[in-house]
């Protein structure tokens, strides 16, 4: 009996572990609420008291780059005050954000990955798809620019980097930026593989730090770049190139698939984003004098 003790303990431990996992699995149904509670947006709002009913909470899944730009800190309080609601922002990668929409754990999704968005709508996960704004990606690299990427458009620059087998860091995390990079590589004729092609598998901030440390070329969104570049020896080489436009769009999660989705508030949010006054806010948003976003719907006549 004594000799079997470790085995019994092992079995007990395994059972306990599996139980824990099952519990974790049950909890997973509401990752939105869990993740969002750690986000600043749940605390900063003054309209929280007004948001007593469950249907006055909007669960917005967006990308970390959107949050990090600071734009939502400006827009969300306005929306919260207008609609007496609370917005729980879940800032994750584009892939995870779309997944949250797919599983009904978000009411609206604000991302920047056009083809993935189209697939999302085509699969009936989303019901409304509205362009909101765009900004630009840029290619940064070492100041001495050994590949001679400066001045080219993005496709040509990538071609030069790959041809010269210069060090290039890819996000490799299925994020909007990574997807964009992949589509650029497709236009080069498929991403070649070379020894200095490195995947970071991390967010934009850590990836930029890595590129700076390793003196590598990197494709980055402008917002993250502007926030961090002062510390870097890396310089921006290809910017505001037409093939580096980065369009953002918002989608309403399909309420037919997930009865819990607050579609009416999500629709209100979409209306809010494309309204003239919000579009102006987006267009005029500046951080340290840098313009972050170009509004897409200012030219339209919008009802308010």
């Amino acid at each position: 009996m004594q000799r079997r003790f470790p085995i019994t303990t092992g079995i007990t431990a395994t059972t306990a572990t599996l139980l824990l996992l099952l519990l974790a699995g049950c909890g997973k149904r509401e990752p939105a609420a869990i993740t969002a509670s750690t986000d600043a947006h749940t605390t900063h709002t003054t309209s929280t008291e007004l948001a007593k009913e469950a249907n006055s909470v909007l669960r917005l899944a967006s990308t970390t780059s959107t949050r990090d730009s600071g734009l939502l800190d400006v827009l969300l309080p306005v929306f919260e005050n207008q609609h007496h609601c609370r917005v729980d922002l879940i800032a994750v990668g584009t892939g995870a954000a779309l997944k949250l929409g797919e599983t009904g754990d978000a009411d609206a999704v604000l991302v920047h990955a056009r083809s993935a968005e189209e697939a999302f709508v085509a699969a009936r996960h989303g019901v409304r798809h509205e362009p909101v704004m765009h900004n630009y990606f840029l290619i940064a690299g070492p100041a001495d620019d050994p590949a001679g990427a400066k001045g080219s458009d993005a496709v040509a620059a990538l071609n030069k980097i790959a041809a010269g087998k210069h060090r290039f860091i890819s996000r490799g995390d299925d994020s909007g930026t990574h997807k964009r990079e992949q589509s650029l590589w497709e236009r080069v004729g498929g991403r070649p593989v070379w020894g200095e092609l490195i995947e970071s598998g991390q967010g934009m901030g850590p990836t930029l730090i890595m590129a700076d440390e390793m003196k590598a070329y990197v494709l980055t969104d402008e917002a993250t770049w502007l926030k961090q570049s002062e510390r870097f020896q890396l310089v921006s080489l290809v910017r505001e190139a037409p093939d580096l436009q980065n369009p953002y769009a918002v989608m309403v999660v399909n309420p037919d698939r997930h009865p819990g989705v607050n579609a009416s508030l999500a629709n209100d949010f979409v209306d809010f984003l494309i309204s003239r006054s919000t579009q102006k806010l987006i267009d005029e948003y500046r951080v340290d004098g840098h313009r972050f976003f170009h509004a897409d719907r200012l030219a339209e006549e919008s009802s308010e």
Partner: protein
Amino acid sequence: MIIDGIRDAMQLLLQFDATVIDAAVRSLWVSLLAVAVASVVGVGVGLLLARKQFPGRTILVGMFRVGMSIPTVLIGLLCFGVLSRRGVLGEFELLYTTWAIVIGEFFLAVPIVTTWTHGAIARLDPRVAETARTLGAGRLQRSMTYLSEARLSIMLAVLTAFSRCFTELGIAMMVGGNIPGRTRTLTTATALETSRGEFSRGMAMSLILLLIALLVTIVIVFFSRGDEEAIS
């Protein structure tokens, strides 16, 4: 999702998914190496702290004790600062290599091994020391006696340190960089799959991690059992 995760884990394991095996092997050797070096240092320092009187000893013991609860992201951050191109050791270009992870995990493991070794030897029956001395044991022999008397605690300390290193994420992500085929470990791979929205694949990775951690726990239980029997 859990069911998917378990199924995925089985599939990944049975198919010997190259990227998973690669990350698992890296996780293993990195933490094994870090803990091995940390054990040598930790046991030595622990022994010294327990058996030698010198000014500042209590403070040192306290520092190691506090060191046990330093968050791994902070260790990662400090290592980053030192290993960065602009850091003191920048010229060695260790950042984003497995060696950087080994260094970070070393600092994670040392306080654990040191504190436990110190505690175990300090708690030893004073008669052990007296007996050893009366039997004419030299300094080295006495040290070996202490270590042998406290071997169970030390063993447990080493295994605990291993579990901590094997499952930590902050250091591996920050100074390793999660580069596939170079510095990606099971924990950073899990973090990546989760951020990708591939929850079941992330779950599969965690299960593999858990499985190995469980094995270590069983070994710990086995050892504590064996020792109890030896005493009785």
